[in-house]
């Protein structure tokens, strides 16, 4: 799974884009994965966006880990995994992916911005999203993480942890389960760890 470097094979790097809407837990996920990579023994960097962008707007965070990481940003076309908490946001960030190397893990639960209604625009259909992702991806995996999280907790907010568990079990992220559990411990306030872990496990055990 880990990508070989362009330099001739021995240097490892793995690039992730985590995208969604302010409030969906994009920042939490970014922090967890960065910590998990450190726990696994990698160098790691991430780039987040705070402030204006967090008020229900679209956000894309970057995480990179490997032997030695310089830029906190993923180069266009060089993502190994695009982790999208919302289909429209998968589409918005698709240029980070390429046919050669990129897996898109997309939460199928749509969040329609009210500005679309006010401006009388159309939210794209799921099939438009999937078709459009083709030139930018090697593989697209669609899961209804929000629904699963809602079933388990009554709230869709934990979809991020469900997807993290899923991506770990399916080896979409080259990090061991233990490393991610350690990462969760570092990145999440103590009182929420149990619940987060529960949903992580749910995603981990999903078919």
């Amino acid at each position, binding site marked *: 799974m880990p990508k070989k470097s362009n330099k001739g094979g021995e240097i490892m790097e793995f690039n992730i884009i985590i995208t969604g809407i302010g409030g969906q837990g994009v920042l939490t996920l970014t922090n967890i994965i960065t910590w998990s990579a450190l726990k696994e023994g990698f160098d790691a*960097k991430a780039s987040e966006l705070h402030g*204006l962008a967090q008020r229900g707007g679209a956000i894309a965070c970057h995480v990179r880990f490997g032997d030695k990481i310089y830029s906190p940003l993923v180069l266009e076309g060089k993502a190994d995994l695009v982790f999208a908490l919302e289909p429209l946001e998968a589409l918005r960030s698709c240029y980070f992916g390429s046919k050669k190397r990129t897996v898109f893990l997309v939460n199928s639960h749509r969040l329609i911005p009210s500005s679309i209604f006010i401006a009388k625009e159309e939210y794209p259909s799921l099939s438009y999203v999937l078709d459009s992702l083709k030139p930018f991806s090697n593989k697209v995996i669609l899961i209804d993480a929000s629904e699963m999280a809602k079933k388990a907790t009554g709230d869709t907010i934990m979809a991020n942890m469900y997807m993290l568990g899923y991506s770990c079990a399916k080896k979409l992220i080259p990090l061991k389960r233990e490393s991610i559990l350690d990462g969760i411990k570092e990145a999440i306030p103590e009182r929420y760890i149990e619940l987060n872990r529960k949903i992580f496990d749910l995603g981990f055990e999903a078919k």
Partner: protein
Amino acid sequence: MESILLNKYGKKVILLGNEAIVRGALEAGVGFSSTYPGTPASEIGDTFSEIAKDANLYFEYSTNEKVALEAAAGAALCGVRSMVSFKQYGLNVSSDSAFPLAYIGVRAGMVIVVADDPNCWSSAQSEQDSRYYARLAHIPMLEPSDSQECKDFTKIAFNLSEKFSIPLLLRTTTRVSHGRGVVTLGKIVEGKKRGRFNKDSIRFRNFPPYIMETHEELHKKLNELRKISEEIDINFSLNEGSKNDLGIVTSGVAFNYVMDALQDLKLDLPVLKLGMTYPIPDDKIRNFIKDLKSILFVEEIEPILEESVSALAKDVNPELEFYGKKNGYLPRSGELKEWHVLLAISKITGVKSQFNPIAQKEEYKKLSIVKRLPVMCPGCPHRASFFATKSVVGEDAVFGGDIGCYILGVYPPFETQDFVFSMGASEGVIHGIKKVSDQKAIAFIGDSTFFHAGIPGLINTVYNGSNPLIIILDNRSTAMTGHQPHPGVGITGMGEKSKVINIEDIVRACGVENVRVVDPFNVKEMEDAVREYLQKEKVSVIVAKRECQLLAIRRKKREGIVIPKFGIDQSLCDGCGICLYEFGCPAIFIENDKFFIDKDLCTGCAVCVRICPKRAIKAVK
């Protein structure tokens, strides 16, 4: 957060750039810290606020950046190490005191952190490059490129500041402030927390003719610091043995893009990375450029290194060719990205990258992707204020905008920010408009912004006699930057209670006769107030007071109060669409021509209930 206080020497942790700066300050024995919240610097203050008690240091949210800088200077003059942090415009606000501070100097280390925001990711106003201030005010500057350097450079800055009795600037950009990375912890040092002001009749009084003396002394210090810049290992070069005659000069986060681009292109170009960008190491630079044929400058925002290095080339290498922002090899606006650097190097060297970002972007442009703009939260009191105001005045009034969450009123359906300048400017500009125009004019200003810079503007309006309507959107918080407290809330940065300063009392004390406090959720009352006050011959002020809904929800959850949810009774709704098209609550949506409320998003403010002409919106289980 806990890792910031960990006293485990050599342990590796993940820190945000802003957190790493705080850690660096702790390892340097900081005793005093102040800020006015501003993204991308906000988490520095917030982190201090969280740990101040445990770390046994003093922290405050000051009323504005000028006061914050002055307070930190006061501590440093008494021999206590201090840090002040703000976003780029904060440095503008504080500059009136920052300039003389360079002359006056400090008795203990003082670090001024300024966070620039290329691309305006988290702020409006301008893409300011604060590195010009270093040169303008003669304050030395360090520029870290990642979290580890944030911590290390902060310590270096404290030491240099104290050694040369001069404040130091630490400049970050968004991708450094909000970048996470691995940081190896050092030892936390217990610094001095108490000090004493010892008078110095020449230096501190800063009064002519002594100013010429302190100015002279300042240049002596800078000359010494120039020598430091030559020797210090944060100014270093890589790939010196390279056979390539194209070199790269870079600083800050841009260094990382250079390193990745070189790896992608399998090139080993010589690179000069400057961690100290004022004063620059003239000799080191001359030495670096003397045998090269050309230089590419890779730096964030303005071509500052480009300008100073090309000036140095005149005597050592007059034939040297330059590539950078000035001749279009790199962009003059927006933030720098690795692909810009990749393309620039490709273009100069002819070496092709295996990635084709241009083709990638072309492919992307073919897609139709609707925008998802940031919005005011469901239940936001500002939405209710904007709705009530617009329902009374319609489109033709002039709406003065200001800095805060309410800036989002710029978008439809409200468009209640006809201009935005800077903190407090809604009032100043609206006064000028009122002096020359008969249009109806309304200034919107937030509570924290009012304390920050709104009071002089208000007094000016009263004193010089114009009659705008000023609506102070008092949501009991500095919401946009992360809900920091302010003087109207009566909680300090140390988490302690202090006197609550009422905005309406200040407004009255400024001589305003028409003052009314209204709960904006009470739409009718708000509309009546706007209607009445727009007729007044003198300036009038409405304080629209209602806690930020995010805070209210958090508080209610804590207190075990049930948050009601609302739904639309389809048998009563006639599809007029006011709740969506004119009010625009993000919880309301339309499906198959019918209006619905998303229960997951509804925060139960019940404002939609009040504005629905058919009374179709009701509480649901």
